């Protein structure tokens, strides 16, 4: 039980300047994420959860505190030290984002390249890792399309010709093809039909399990959190008001806001 921490967040915060005054979108967030752990971040829109996700994924820089990541050794060297994202070069961060991390956007269009084929969207990340052999790329891409339940015959079609659910599954394949250790997801099932959502959730649950992925999933849907995450973090007005084991937070919420959130859900 003493596996090394994968992602370590300490007092992290991000402020945006509004009418000359800094306004904290999120602040003072601290937690450790271990390999294979799935953490859900819940809260209403404007609570700062998406900003937090962008801090963790180095898409924003911290204005306070820090985010450290266990950077995998690049070539043979046995390094397993936590590195401050703020101290890493642009190139190193890009390399991380392309290989060891995934980022699943709420709108698949933001995470896909719409002007190249579905297959190329998946193969692209492999090529970034140096894979050049066309036959191998094609084979691995096909295998991933099947894995996310996409018809491989659509491999040469543009993503725009895919349905919303298919685009989201394509985005997931694109992210997972390099076997990342950590995946960030921003409302991955929002905006999809309920039946499409169920299929995607089941798929995500299975993949996270099989690949032993660590993930940070931002969602406003408590059922999604319960299904995917062992732990959750509840945010309100930019701060974490409660965190802990998912079923404990949902079944025995302590903070007034969490109690309100849980009691506001309609169960069909």
């Amino acid at each position, binding site marked *: *039980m003493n596996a090394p921490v994968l992602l370590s967040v300490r007092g992290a915060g991000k402020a945006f300047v509004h009418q000359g005054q800094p306004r904290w979108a999120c602040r003072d967030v601290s937690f450790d994420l*271990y390999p294979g*752990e799935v953490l859900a971040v819940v809260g209403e829109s404007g609570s700062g959860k998406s900003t937090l996700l962008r801090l963790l994924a180095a898409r924003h820089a911290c204005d306070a505190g820090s985010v450290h990541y266990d950077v995998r050794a690049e070539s043979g060297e046995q390094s397993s030290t936590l590195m401050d994202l703020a101290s890493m070069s642009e190139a190193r961060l890009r390399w991380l984002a392309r290989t060891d991390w995934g980022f699943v956007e709420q709108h698949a269009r933001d995470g896909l390249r719409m002007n190249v084929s579905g297959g190329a969207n998946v193969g692209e990340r492999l090529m970034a890792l140096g894979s050049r052999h066309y036959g191998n790329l094609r084979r691995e891409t096909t295998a991933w399309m099947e894995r996310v339940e996409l018809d491989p015959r659509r491999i040469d079609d543009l993503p725009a010709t895919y349905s919303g659910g298919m685009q989201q599954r394509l985005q997931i394949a694109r992210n997972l093809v390099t076997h990342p250790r950590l995946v960030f997801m921003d409302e991955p099932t929002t905006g999809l039909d309920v039946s499409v959502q*169920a*299929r995607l*959730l*089941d798929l995500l*649950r299975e993949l996270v399990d099989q690949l032993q992925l660590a993930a940070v999933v931002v969602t406003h849907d408590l059922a999604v959190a*319960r*299904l995917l995450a*062992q*732990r959750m973090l509840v945010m309100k007005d930019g701060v974490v008001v409660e965190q*802990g*084991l*998912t*079923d*404990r937070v949902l*079944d*025995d919420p*302590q*903070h*007034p806001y969490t*109690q*309100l959130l849980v*009691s506001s859900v309609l169960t069909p």
Partner: protein
Amino acid sequence: MNETPMTAILETLALSKTFTLHGRGGLQLPVFAGIDLRVSPGECLALTGHSGSGKSSLLRCLYGNYAASSGDVRIRHEGQWMSLTTALPRDVFEVRRRTMGYVSQFLRVIPRVSTLDIVADPLRRLGVNAESARSQAAQWLTRLNLHEHLWHLPPATFSGGEQQRVNIAHGMITSPAVLLLDEPTASLDADNRRVVVELIHAARASGSAIVGIFHDDEVREAVATRSFDVEQHRNSL
């Protein structure tokens, strides 16, 4: 390490639970206080008390599903005593994966996942291969008289009794060292109640420590080696 005899596997120390309802102006709902329990392998402890006396809340505290308001829940996990009230989420998960099973009254269904796979899942999480896990799951479902034509369907549309049997198979399949049972026979007919009683006997014989709520007097008398009256620890402010 401490004064706990090696024989016990689960204990509570001055455990209390009070709910605070912030939506109702911080209304305090005291449930129980000062509970000291100790359960050893091979025992089946029945929690008793009227409806609303806090039996299920106590069971949920033992599982880490409810937070203790004060006091402690401790479990011997992989030979080490640990506190469930202060453990990190991932450690609680490990305890649930390897040491402690829970059969709730209600089945939480996962869309699209078949009954057989739901029951096999706890074994899969222990590293058992898919084929072997499924065949053991099939044995449990057969034992619990769940018709084979249901195995490949998600249990969402099953009757209460069918869902309960899926839940029992899911909770018991790994033969956990600590087994928590919340009214496991509530919606079962006499034949299936008898099967569950036999399964509990077998779990006890193989060394599980069991804590359960058994509504049915006959079942309770058949399985319990001791009982604990939660009502006696009712906490009235």
